[in-house]
C-alpha cells in the first residue's frame, strides 16, 4: 500500500504540470487570495491592538476595583477604603506586575480666563509609572514628584483652551462627600502630550495625598487598578483579587470594564474568519473548475488505470493529492509574499490623513500591522480544509467512473 501511495503522489505531481498554464493561473489566484487573507488580518490586528492598548493605556489596569456604584455614578461619594494588607498581597501576586490606587472624580478646572469640566486624577506617580499609565510625554515642566506634590499636570490641548501655561495658577473645583464645594488653587508644574487629543482635554493629574486632603476623604480612593502587562490574558487572574477584596468591592477584568473593546476584539476575529471564507469561496469556483477539467481530460486514462486494477480509492487519492499539491504551493507562496509585504510595514503606516476619523476608535496616526502566526495558521486551515472539501466532488466523480464506459469515450 505504501508503494501504491507513493506512486499516486508521483502521478499527482506529474499530472499537475501537464497543463502548466492552467496550474500557474490557479496558483496565482490562490497566492493572491491567501496573501489578501493574511494581509487583511494583519492590518485588522494591528488596528485592534492599537485601539485596545490606547484605551487601556489612558487608564490601564486590566483588572480594576471600584465601589459597586462607582462605574454608574463616578462620584466621590462612591469611594472605598485604601487596600487592606490581604488585598495588597493579592494585587502583588503574579501574573500581576503592578498595581496602583487612585482618586478619580469629575471636577472643574478654572484659569483666570476660562473653565472646563475635566476628570481629576489623584495619583501616586511611582506606582502609576510601574503600571504604565502616565502620559507618554511631558512636553513642558515636569511630572508630579510624589503623592504630596501640590502642583497639577494638564494636557497640552486643555492648557491651550484655558489659556494657561507652565507656572500659572489654576483652581480645581469638585465636591466633597457632603456636597460642599471642595477646591484648591494649584500651580501648573507640567504639560503633557497624549496620543489622543481627547485624553489631553479630559485628564488632569494631581498628587494622591493632596487630592484626598482637598476632597476630605482621608486615605480613601476611587479606583484600584492592576496589570499583568498582557491584555490577552483577558484579566482571568482577577478571581483571587476579588476573593481578597471581599464584599463591598466590584472587581472586574477589562472585557467587562469596556464592553466596546471586548466586543470589538470578538468582531475582529469573526470578521477575519468571514473575510477568509469569502475569499476562499471566490477561489473555490476556480479550484473546482480546474479539477473538473483535469478529470474530464483524463477520463480515458482513468478508465485504463481502473481496468489495469487501480482501486477507486487510489484514484480518489490521486485527484485529492493533486489538489493538495496545488493548495500547498499556493499557501507557501501566499504566506511568503504576505510575510515579505507586511514585515517592512510593521514599523508603521502613516494614516494621519484620516487621523480624526480613526481617533473616534481611539487610534493614533500610525497603523502598525501585526503579522501573527495565528492568522497564518487560520488561513492555512481554512484553505486546506475547505479546499479538500471542494475537491472531493470531482475526485469522487473520477473514482466512480465505469472503466468500460470511460475507455470507450471518444
Amino acid at each position, binding site marked *: 500500500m505504501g508503494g501504491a501511495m507513493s506512486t499516486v503522489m508521483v502521478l499527482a505531481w506529474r499530472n499537475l504540470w501537464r*497543463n502548466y*498554464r*492552467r496550474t500557474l*493561473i*490557479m496558483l*496565482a*489566484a490562490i497566492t*493572491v*487570495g491567501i496573501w*489578501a487573507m493574511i494581509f*487583511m488580518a494583519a492590518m485588522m490586528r494591528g488596528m485592534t491592538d492599537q485601539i485596545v492598548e490606547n484605551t487601556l493605556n489612558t487608564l490601564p489596569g486590566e483588572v480594576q476595583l471600584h465601589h459597586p456604584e462607582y462605574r*454608574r*455614578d463616578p*462620584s466621590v*461619594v462612591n469611594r472605598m477604603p485604601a487596600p487592606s494588607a490581604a488585598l495588597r498581597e493579592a494585587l502583588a501576586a503574579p501574573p500581576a506586575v503592578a498595581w496602583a490606587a487612585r482618586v478619580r472624580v*469629575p*471636577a*472643574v478646572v478654572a484659569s*483666570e*480666563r*476660562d*473653565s*472646563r*469640566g*475635566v476628570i481629576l486624577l489623584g495619583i501616586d506617580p511611582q506606582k502609576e509609572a510601574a503600571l504604565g499609565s502616565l502620559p507618554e510625554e511631558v512636553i513642558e515642566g515636569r511630572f508630579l514628584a510624589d503623592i504630596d506634590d501640590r502642583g497639577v499636570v494638564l494636557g497640552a490641548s486643555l492648557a*491651550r*483652551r484655558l*489659556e494657561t501655561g507652565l507656572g500659572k495658577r489654576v483652581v480645581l*473645583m*469638585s*465636591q466633597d462627600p457632603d*456636597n460642599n*464645594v471642595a477646591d484648591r488653587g494649584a500651580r501648573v508644574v507640567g504639560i503633557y502630550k497624549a496620543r489622543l487629543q481627547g485624553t489631553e482635554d479630559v485628564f488632569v493629574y494631581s498628587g494622591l495625598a493632596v487630592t484626598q486632603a482637598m476632597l476630605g476623604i482621608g486615605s480613601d480612593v476611587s479606583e484600584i487598578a492592576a496589570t499583568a502587562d498582557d491584555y490577552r490574558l483577558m484579566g482571568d487572574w482577577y478571581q483571587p483579587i476579588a476573593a481578597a477584596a471581599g464584599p463591598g468591592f466590584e472587581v472586574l477584568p477589562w472585557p467587562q470594564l469596556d464592553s*466596546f473593546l471586548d*466586543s*470589538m476584539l*470578538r*468582531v475582529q476575529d*469573526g470578521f477575519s474568519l468571514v*473575510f477568509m471564507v*469569502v*475569499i476562499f*469561496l*471566490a477561489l473555490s*469556483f*476556480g479550484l473546482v*473548475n480546474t479539477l*473538473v*477539467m483535469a478529470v*474530464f481530460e483524463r477520463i480515458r486514462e482513468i478508465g485504463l488505470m481502473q481496468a489495469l486494477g487501480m482501486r477507486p480509492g487510489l484514484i480518489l487519492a490521486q485527484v485529492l493529492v493533486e489538489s493538495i499539491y496545488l493548495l500547498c504551493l499556493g499557501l507557501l507562496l501566499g504566506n511568503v509574499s504576505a510575510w515579505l509585504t507586511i514585515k517592512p510595514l510593521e514599523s508603521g503606516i502613516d*494614516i494621519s*490623513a*484620516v*487621523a*480624526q*476619523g*480613526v*481617533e*473616534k*476608535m481611539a487610534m493614533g496616526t500610525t497603523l502598525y500591522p501585526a503579522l501573527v502566526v495565528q492568522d497564518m495558521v487560520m488561513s492555512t486551515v481554512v484553505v486546506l480544509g475547505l479546499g479538500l472539501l471542494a475537491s472531493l466532488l470531482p475526485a469522487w466523480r473520477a473514482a466512480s467512473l465505469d472503466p468500460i464506459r470511460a475507455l470507450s469515450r471518444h
Partner: protein
Amino acid sequence: MNVTWLLAWRNLWRHSRRTWLTVAAMVFCNVLLVFLISLQLGSYTMMIDNTLGTFSGHIQVQHVGYLDQQKMRQTVPAAAELAQTLREQQGVSAASARGIAFALASSEERSFGIQIVGVEPAYEPEVSTFPGLVKQGRFLAPDAGVDSDEIVIGSILADNLKVGLGDELTFLGSGRDGSFAAAVATVVGVIDTGFDEVDRSIAEVPLAWFQQVFTMGNQGHSVVLRVDDFDAVPQQVAVIQQQVADRAELVVLDWDALQPGLRQAITSDMASAWFMYGVLIILVAFSVLNTQLMSVLERTREFGVMLSLGMGPGKLARLVGLETLMMSTIGLAFGVLLGGLLVWYLSFAGFYFPGMEEMGKRFNLPERMYPEFSLLAILWGPTTVFLFALLAALYPALRLFRLQPVPAMRAA
C-alpha cells in the same frame, strides 16, 4: 442571428459545467459586491445623518477661532437676529442660535462640571434631535425668555446629580466678561438619547436666560443651520459667507469642518472596503482567464482548420471575445438580479450582526443596518467585474494572432 454569435453561443455550452462554474464565480462575487456596497453606502448616509442631525447641523456660523479654542469671548454678535435672517433664506430649512458655557452644576447632593448650552427653544428642535428625545417632562417652553429658568438635562447626568423633574440646579461659572456667574434653574425635562456620552453631558437652557446669566448681551457662540439639500452645502456656505462678509470676525463652517472625523472615518472605511473588493474582482478575473485560456487551448486544432479555411485571426479573437461577453453578461444579469433582490429585501427588513451594537454606538449607527437601494450601489460592482472579465479574456484572444494554421492543425 449572425454566424459568429451562433458559434460563440454554442462554444460556450460545449463544456457547460465549466461555463456554469465560471458564471457561478461571477454571480457569487457580484451578489457579494452588490450587498457590501449597498450596505456601505447605506451606513455612510446613516452616519452622516445621525452625526449631523443630533447637534452640529450642516453649517454653522461662528467667531473665527471658536471651533478650536471654544473661548467665552469668541462670540457671534446679535446671534438670534442673524439666525432669523438666515432662516428666511432660500435653501435653508432651519436655523437656530446657541451659546455655550462651562459651569459647575450642583444639586443638593452632587456637583459636576458640565457644558451648558443656551438654545432658542422655538427653533432648536429643527436643527437637533435632542429636544425630540425628552423622555420625562417636556422640552423648554417655545416662548421661554429671560425670566424662564427652565433646564433640560441628559438622563445619566440627572442620575449622577440625583435630580428629577422639578428639582433645582445651581450653577457656578464665569461670564463673558470674566465676572462671576451664578444662577438657579429648574429641571423641566430629561433627555435620553441612548448614547451615554451625550446623556452624561447635555444640558440645555433658553438662550435669553443664558445670555443674562453669563453676561452675553445679545451675543451667542454659533448659529446652526440645516439646509434643504445636503449636496448643496458648499453653495450655501458660499452664499452665507457673502452675507456676513462685512463682519470679518465671523466664519461659515460646513459639516466637514465641524465634524472632521466624519469624512475621515468614511475615507478610512472605504480604503479597507476597496481592498476586499479589489481582491474579489481579481480572483474572478483569474477564474475567467483560466476558463477562456483553456477553451482556446483545447480548440487549437479547430482554430487551425478555421484559419486555413480563410478566417482571419481577428475574427477568431472576436469569437473568443464574444464568448466572454456572453458569459459575463449572464454573470452580470444573475448577479444584479439576485443581489438587487437581496438588497431590496434588506433595505426594509434591516440587517444585523452580533457585536454591532457596540460598534454602532461609537459611530452613531442604529442597531440594525439598512442597505441603500440605489442604482449606483447595485450596478457598480457587477459592472466592474464585467469589465475585468472582458479584460481577462484579452490574453487568450491575443494568443490567436500568433497561431500558425499548419502546426495548429497538427497539435494534439
